[in-house]
């Protein structure tokens, strides 16, 4: 196995070396999928080359936890797939000196008809484990997943939570020296996530190497020793998480602002200084669908301002507005404010579905003729899966589904996600 390779002597203490890697994809204008088309097109497909990675180089020393960040389409996932040996770079090389496991998807290769036990063995084998290794760790895996009672039932009967727990338990027990992870820290319920976090910390404390690819900067900040920012297929910054993430966030917001106009408008004197997102009086970067969330808007003003109207606009990172409550609509405008203070906008049972959101704030006079302060992207925050399993759209309306009709079975198809083509069918 290439990841058992011994490397060269210079690589002592280096777990992973990415050396001048370039990866291009063919983007087909017209793609022949049948021989007839292929021949009709003169035996060649028309395509343009798209450079997903350009001359990327870095080293990861043994024992380091590295976060790779970048916006969607920056090339970070391509980089991960190259490191995982799923894709082959067009130029440059990637050397791996440790036993590697790559987790791009939980439960890859799970078969719904097989029991949990069989799937543990199959999934672990896909991740490169030998049979004696799996047999030795089997009890740990089952204990971690807390599915002892269900381990001999087919996974098609599992709930999505159970499915993810089993998949994660296998993945974390593959026991590699170098782990590559793609966005899977946010799985399962809070308790299970806590457990996963502890496992990762233990993993790090044992001196193993971790590469995490994510757009969630807070997990990089909390968890990694180093951050690498990939932008348009190139390494844009490489250094301490705090520095790199600040630079990254700033550039992201500037880019957003350049598209939306300036970051801050208004004539003052009142200014919004910051916005906090709180759950149970604790400041959070990430909340969950269904949480009771408080948005705390801090402001200051050198002179008294009469009946200021505060509004808060929550939008998706792609710019789609979701809601825009204002203190005037809520009949919550104080007669006057002065000095420093904050206003809490409390929301019960958050209906935003998982994703990243941004908050714009605006303060104006009662008639809205006079704009005191408008702040774009005063705050961004992430929403994780909570009490709703909806994934499309922006909000959940918490609907109830009721069926009628003689031909409709009363039994509900209770099936673990993700679905497979076997789920479809005409009965």
């Amino acid at each position, binding site marked *: 196995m*290439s990841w058992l390779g011994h490397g060269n002597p210079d690589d002592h203490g280096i777990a992973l070396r990415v050396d001048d890697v370039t990866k291009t994809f063919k983007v087909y204008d017209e793609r022949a999928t*049948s021989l007839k088309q292929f021949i009709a097109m003169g035996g060649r497909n028309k395509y343009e080359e798209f450079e997903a990675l350009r001359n990327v180089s870095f080293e990861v020393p043994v024992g380091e936890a590295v976060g790779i960040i970048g916006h969607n389409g920056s090339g970070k996932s391509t980089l991960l*797939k190259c490191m*995982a040996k*799923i894709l082959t770079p067009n130029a440059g090389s990637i050397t791996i000196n440790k036993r590697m496991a790559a987790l791009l998807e939980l439960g*890859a290769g799970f078969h719904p008809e097989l029991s949990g036990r069989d799937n543990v063995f199959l999934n672990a*084998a*896909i991740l*490169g484990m030998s*049979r004696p290794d799996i047999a030795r760790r089997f009890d740990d895996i089952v204990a971690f997943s807390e599915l002892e009672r269900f381990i001999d039932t087919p996974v098609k009967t599992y709930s999505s939570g159970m499915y993810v727990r089993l998949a994660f338990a296998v993945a974390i027990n593959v026991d590699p020296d170098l782990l590559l992870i793609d966005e899977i820290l946010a799985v399962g319920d809070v308790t299970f996530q806590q457990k996963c976090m502890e496992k990762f910390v233990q993993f790090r404390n044992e001196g193993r190497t971790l590469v995490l690819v994510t757009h969630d900067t807070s997990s990089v900040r909390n968890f990694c020793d180093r951050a690498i920012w990939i932008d348009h297929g190139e390494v844009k910054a490489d250094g301490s998480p705090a520095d790199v993430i600040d630079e990254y966030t700033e550039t992201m917001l500037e880019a957003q602002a350049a598209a939306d106009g300036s970051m801050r408008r208004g004539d003052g004197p009142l200014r919004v200084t910051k916005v906090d997102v709180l759950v149970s009086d604790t400041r959070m970067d990430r909340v969950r669908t269904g949480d009771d969330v408080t948005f705390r808007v801090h402001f200051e003003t050198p002179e008294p301002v009469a009946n200021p109207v505060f509004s808060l606009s929550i939008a998706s990172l792609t710019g789609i507005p979701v809601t825009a409550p204002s203190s005037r609509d809520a009949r919550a405008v104080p007669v006057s404010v002065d000095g420093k203070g904050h206003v809490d906008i409390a929301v019960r049972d958050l209906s935003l579905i998982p994703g990243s959101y941004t908050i714009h704030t605006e303060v104006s006079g009662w008639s809205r003729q006079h704009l005191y302060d408008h702040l774009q992207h005063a705050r961004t925050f992430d929403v994780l899966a909570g009490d709703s399993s909806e994934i499309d759209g922006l909000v959940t309306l918490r609907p109830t589904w009721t069926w009628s009709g003689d031909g409709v079975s009363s039994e509900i198809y209770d099936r673990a996600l993700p679905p497979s083509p076997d789920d479809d069918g005409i009965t």
Partner: protein
Amino acid sequence: MSLRTAVAHRNLLYLLSLKELRTRYRKSVLGWAWSLLNPLSQMVIFTVVFLYIFLREPPIGDPSGLEVFPLYFLAGMLPFQYFSISVTASIGSVQEGSNLIKKVAFPHEHLVLSIVIAQFATLLIELLVLSVAFLIFGHMVLPWLAPMMLLLVLITMFTIGVALLLSAANVFFHDINYLWTIVAQLLFYSSPIIFVTEEIPFAWLRLITSLGPTGSFVRASQEILYDGQWPSIERWALVAMYSITSLLAGAWVFNRLSPRFAEEL
């Protein structure tokens, strides 16, 4: 991927084959019985056609002395069906494994090999049943199972080669699937399974049916099981030549194309 990688992943190959066997007859009432019912129903059909419609005499096994058309049919059909079903199931296997290929690094050929292994297990059961039938008709077939195993090794090499070639090509051109349906039919009717080569009046047709890639191993299988004689050295050489060529070509093409699967799927 290199041979070393494939060996390191032999556990995966074992488990994929097991999965293939365990999930094949899921949700079917008769389950594993289907793997026997399929060749048996064909045997009945072709026996009726051969004996009662075309009014042919069953071939006489030399030196076994057997004169039983159903046994002659199965001796050729079982290895042929092992080959054709393996290839049919393999063609879509890379496509079906696309999610895995895009998410995990593993030897892609295991998707194909596991199908052939599972079909091989099925074939062994079928041959066991066939052997009992031979014994009932008074032909002591058991010593002949040793050369049969040797022949099966060659047939398996041939099957794997074709399966690797077509499953890799199918990633790029989906009409391989339809093409194969026609080719499989051609191969079936050009192999002496439902007729006897020696009875064909045209010399060139006799040549095609006994020297073709499937015809040659079908003849070898009939000679071993039905006639009870060693196939000629020329026949062994021919079968071996087809097998080695197929395996080398299939493995070469598959290895060339498999690094591109993750992008193309």
